[in-house]
């Protein structure tokens, strides 16, 4: 540590946080359960409403149609969720800044069109097409960031302009053909439709993930204990790991009855996990939350605020474009309707339903994962019971309103209990 002018610290002191007796102590499994109850009561709901929501959705549609929870339908839900989910991950980033990107749908459609034209019509290598499509999104995001930071146009307006402009550009790129079909034998289509982890690989992956989680947690406990800081108990970590192993193991077993974990699904989940680590563990992530919480404070503490905005907008563009490529892969076609309204609203709604605050600074990468599962699950259920698409829109709207209402009520509880 850098300071030398200060008096030597009193290392005989008890654990650092024990100096204040007002602080409730949570030790062991029971303590963890108490802490969880207290958090929920104080309005810090976290991901709880979404998880409860998923159970309710599953139950309701199961009662309508027993095949809803079948392995094959769940595999379809996971596959269908991927393109929306990847776009929603990007939306989380701009929402954390307290900004918005309304054009993620248009960017996804444009990216899909560019890749399809290059690969299918002009016979360019697939990698080149993918890079061009994804790169377009990143460049658009950088442009948004520059316009936002240098000129000061609100992100709502910039991206509304982008929403319109890039639909037009998509029409230009597609030309007279209107629709371009990607051959089902293309590796891109295979990746999103046909490639699945073999059962053996999937079980090994589950074990590796859980062991990695447990090891990282135990190393964390040891480092914190060595530094005289409070740490979660070993029992709790082992308990969590066991629950994780059982949960993931069962899910894997159940999905493996049908096709199992799709490559695209694994890619999406890995993306969420990586982004979560980036947000929580890196200075960039910390600065993103800081800018979303109080821009002026962030600027005064020496954070390059413009860089945070530009990098976040460009990542959102990149992820929106990647989502567009996944749509191309999953649907094996791109048309003038690709990336229209439905995509935009679903991706933004997914992030919000997953618990990302529209006012910035609050939310996590997992919000995108859970939010998109909720919307895809509802969509799948409504399709199965054969309702009109009008009903689907209405239900999606109602769920969005419900989710934001829960968040608003929880925010009031947080304010009164001082959880910010």
């Amino acid at each position, binding site marked *: 540590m850098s300071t030398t002018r200060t008096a030597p610290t009193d290392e005989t002191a008890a654990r650092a946080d024990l100096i*204040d007796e007002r602080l409730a102590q949570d030790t062991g499994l029971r303590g963890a359960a108490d802490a969880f109850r207290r958090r929920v009561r104080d309005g810090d709901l976290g991901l709880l409403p979404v998880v409860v929501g998923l159970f309710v959705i599953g139950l309701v549609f199961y009662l309508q149609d027993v095949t809803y929870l079948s392995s094959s339908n769940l595999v379809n839900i996971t596959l269908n969720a991927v393109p929306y989910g990847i776009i929603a991950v990007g939306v989380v980033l701009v929402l954390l800044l307290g900004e918005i990107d309304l054009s993620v749908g248009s960017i996804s459609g444009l990216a899909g069109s560019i890749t399809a034209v290059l690969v299918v019509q002009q016979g360019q290598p697939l990698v080149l097409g993918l890079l061009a499509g994804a790169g377009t999104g990143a460049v658009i995001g950088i442009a948004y960031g520059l316009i936002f930071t240098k000129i000061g146009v609100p992100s709502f307006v910039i991206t509304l302009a982008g929403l319109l402009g890039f639909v037009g550009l998509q029409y230009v790129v597609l030309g007279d053909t209107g629709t371009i079909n990607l051959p089902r034998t293309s590796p891109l289509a295979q990746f999103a439709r046909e490639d699945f982890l073999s059962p053996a690989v999937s079980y090994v992956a589950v074990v590796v993930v859980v062991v990695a989680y447990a090891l990282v947690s135990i190393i964390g406990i040891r480092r914190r204990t060595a*530094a005289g800081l409070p740490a979660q108990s070993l029992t709790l970590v082992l308990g969590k790991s066991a629950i994780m192993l059982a949960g993931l193991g069962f899910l894997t077993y159940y999905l493996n009855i049908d096709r199992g974990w799709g490559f695209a699904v694994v890619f999406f989940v890995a993306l969420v996990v990586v982004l979560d680590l980036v947000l929580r563990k890196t200075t960039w992530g910390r600065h993103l939350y800081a800018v979303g919480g109080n821009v002026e404070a962030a600027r005064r503490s020496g954070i390059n605020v413009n860089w945070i905005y530009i990098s976040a907008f460009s990542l959102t563009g990149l992820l929106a474009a990647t989502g567009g490529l996944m749509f191309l892969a999953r649907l094996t076609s791109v048309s003038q309707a690709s990336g229209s309204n439905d995509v935009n609203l679903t991706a933004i709604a997914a992030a919000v339903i997953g618990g990302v605050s529209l006012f910035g600074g609050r939310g996590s990468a997992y919000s995108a994962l859970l939010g998109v599962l909720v919307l895809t699950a509802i969509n799948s259920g409504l399709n199965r019971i054969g309702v009109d698409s009008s009903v689907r829109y209405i239900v999606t709207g109602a769920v969005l309103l419900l989710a934001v209402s829960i968040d608003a009520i929880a925010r009031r509880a947080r304010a009164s209990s001082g959880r910010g």
Partner: protein
Amino acid sequence: MSVATHESGSPAQTTEPVLELTGIGKHFGAVQALAGVDFRVHPGEVVALVGDNGAGKSTLVKIMSGVYQADSGRMRVEGREVHVHSPSAAQSLGIATVFQDLALCDNLDVVGNLFLGSELGSNAWMDEVAMEKESWRLLRELGAKIPTVRIPVASLSGGQRQTVAIARSLVGSPKVVMLDEPTAALGVAQTAEVLNLVERLREQNLGVVLISHNMADVQAVADRIVVLRLGRNEAEFRTVDVTTEQLVAAITGASDNVVAERHARRVPPATETGEVEA
């Protein structure tokens, strides 16, 4: 305008100023916020910057902390001329500022706020354990009563938030700490704690700039008092030489006010040393 100088003989004066500004000017549109302002602070010295509303205190602080850039004048850190383009430039020069609004991120926890912009760790990866440990050390040093460093600062009281803001200014091992109205929102005991803290900063041989409206606080801890009025240097006093009445007279600019007249009648002229017309 009369500039009173009472400054010879203070122990801090024998050293080179750690921060020195000369002839600082700044205008906002037609408003001349600062004109030809001189200011300096030595290591181990607490300099109070006082003045009425609109005197230019906050503008001067923001220039020193890199939030604004001066239109004219020069700034030197440890004798070396510097140009402070940004708050981060000021920080890297060793000038730390605790703003009146504290500039905390309510959604981040105490550790996150303390190390915001200067996170510990290797490359982009943050070392939370080191930061949390250092947070407790800093807070203990200030005798802070913070229940846990892992709650969002939104849930802390006014005094606790002030403490976090002051602790944060110490993170980068600064040479100069500027405190903008640190006691304005605090209770009696918390004010005393902050004043103790100011003295501890002085003991650590830091230059401390204290901006305050509260004459009692200023006279309790400052070594030297610089009075700004309408964007200019009005007067400068050693705290031991000055009475509250003289300070008030300098701040309000009414040297012929009733308070000053009464004071002049009571005090023999011989002790009024150094009152020089500039």
